[in-house]
């Protein structure tokens, strides 16, 4: 296998590769051996602890599925609310009027620089103190509030960079045929930008999904991670087994979302009707991060 960085390999390089492979395998195997050996010693791999997940459905239907439902509910609510809010903020940042542009920029930059967890903790206290939200829903509201505030500002950046990524001729052409500013945005720029942003938006879903776990660990939101806690009281403290299964579920969900996002991206790139402006899914994954890729 050759790439830009290395040629097709000659005999010496091949030998060296084999050495590397063997050493790497040995180290990796030793590590696994140690992990599994110790886990067995400490009795964490006993079948009793893992059995609930593999035999019967009661562990899934009593604990995991309701938890997963809450996770998805929070994530979907957050996206559905954050998307229009983010679009408005993103477009506002592109406004010609300073009094629209500057406040929007302040809001976006402010919420992007504060940790989601801090927003969630604040939200929980806020709802408890000043509103009539019942204790059943308060953690959900707090989690969604935190996620919406943060992700709306990230999505605002995605929208903004999606519009900026369009070829200039699009706006110029639209203005030349006499469309007004609002019409240019509504009829020409946004429809194209939305398709360009789709991969970015889908990968932002991964970030949102992961962040819901904060609600389970630090607030009292009964989502997937927290369901492993409730479950461990019944199945004899199988916390390690529980968290492992939960982690596997997160990986499966997020990996399929991420794969979907890059498939979308490839698809859009190839599409003939597109202007060729596509935000890469990767750009936004760094936005996990708090700043959309194109700064």
């Amino acid at each position, binding site marked *: 296998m050759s790439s830009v960085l290395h040629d097709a390999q000659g005999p010496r390089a091949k030998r060296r590769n084999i050495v590397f492979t063997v050493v790497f395998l040995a180290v990796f195997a030793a590590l696994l051996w140690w992990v599994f050996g110790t886990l067995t010693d400490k009795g964490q791999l006993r079948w009793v602890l893992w059995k609930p997940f593999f035999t019967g459905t009661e562990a899934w239907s009593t604990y995991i599925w309701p938890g997963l439902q809450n996770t*998805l509910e929070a994530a979907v609510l957050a*996206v559905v609310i954050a998307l229009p809010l983010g679009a408005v903020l993103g477009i506002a940042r592109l406004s010609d009027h300073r009094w629209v542009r500057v406040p929007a920029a302040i809001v976006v930059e402010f919420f992007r620089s504060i940790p989601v967890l801090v927003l969630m903790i604040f939200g929980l206290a806020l709802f408890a103190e000043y509103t*009539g939200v*019942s*204790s059943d829903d308060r953690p959900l509201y707090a989690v969604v509030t935190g996620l919406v505030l943060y992700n709306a500002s990230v999505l605002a950046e995605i929208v903004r960079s999606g519009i900026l990524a369009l070829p200039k001729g699009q706006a110029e052409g639209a203005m030349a045929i006499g469309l007004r500013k609002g019409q240019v945005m509504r009829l020409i720029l946004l429809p194209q930008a939305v*398709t360009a942003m789709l991969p970015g938006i889908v990968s932002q879903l991964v970030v949102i999904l992961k962040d819901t776990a904060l609600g389970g660990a630090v607030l009292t939101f009964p989502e997937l991670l927290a369901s492993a806690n409730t479950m461990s009281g019944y199945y004899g403290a199988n916390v390690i087994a529980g968290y492992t299964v939960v982690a596997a579920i997160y990986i499966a969900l997020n990996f399929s979302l991420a794969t*979907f996002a890059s498939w979308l991206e490839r*698809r859009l790139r190839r599409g003939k*009707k597109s202007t060729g402006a596509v935000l890469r899914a990767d750009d936004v994954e760094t936005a996990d991060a708090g700043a959309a890729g194109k700064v």
Partner: protein
Amino acid sequence: MKLRKVSAASAAVLALAVTATACGGGDKKDSGSSGGSGGDKKIAIGIKFDQPGLGQKTPDGYAGFDVDVATYVAKKLGYTEDQIEWKESKSADRETMLQRGDVDFIAATYSITPERQQKVDFAGPYLLAHQDVLLRADDDKVKSPGDLNAAKLCSVTGSTSAQNVKKKLAPKAQLQPYPTYSACLPGLQNGAIDALTTDDSILAGYASQAQFKGKFKLGGFKLTNENYGIGVKKGSDLKTKINKALEEMVTDKSWDKAVKDNFGPAGYKNEPAPKIGDIKS
């Protein structure tokens, strides 16, 4: 046309996700909204969901001493088991839940304290528990409460028992907080943690689980008195009715049965049934 297909596909996926969760959310709302009023013959009771022996969510419903007491009381108030709606009441949420009327009463390892009495009313007590420590069966490092100063303790984030130890009993002890008590057990088993501290009634529930038989022991220190009461809204007329029910529960021996069912396997030496209003400080 490709673009449109892609957009349609993603819209479909999104719609699917929304409906899927909407259904899930819907169920929850239905069961959540009818609590509070007695008119439609439902009663909402707050319990713990993750404390074996007291209040634990299981595949067959809810089980534990608190659950049995609450069921008995509800029956005396005129509700069948089917009319009870169980709600999870985390320690930090209990006063607010009562004040706002999210639940009719709470039986969730709810100790009667003067601070809480300012906010809510208590019926009972129905059980006298003590803060204690759970130790490895083969560990004799911790013989008296004073030894806890040199120990590594584990408890639940923000629990009063943890703060109690830190402030009064063993200020020098190290404390590891986790989201749930079960998370403390692997460490306790392996020696990374010396003692798990909370009420002995809760500890007994863990110690009695089949796979921990003989591995753990209770310290038996009786560090504090925890008078478990049933919390009701301040000024609620439920208090006297619940007190009456609790008295009956003791006289008709249901109390003993509930203790035996839930604490028996744990070998937990419970205190005799407390008299109503007799709060040990």
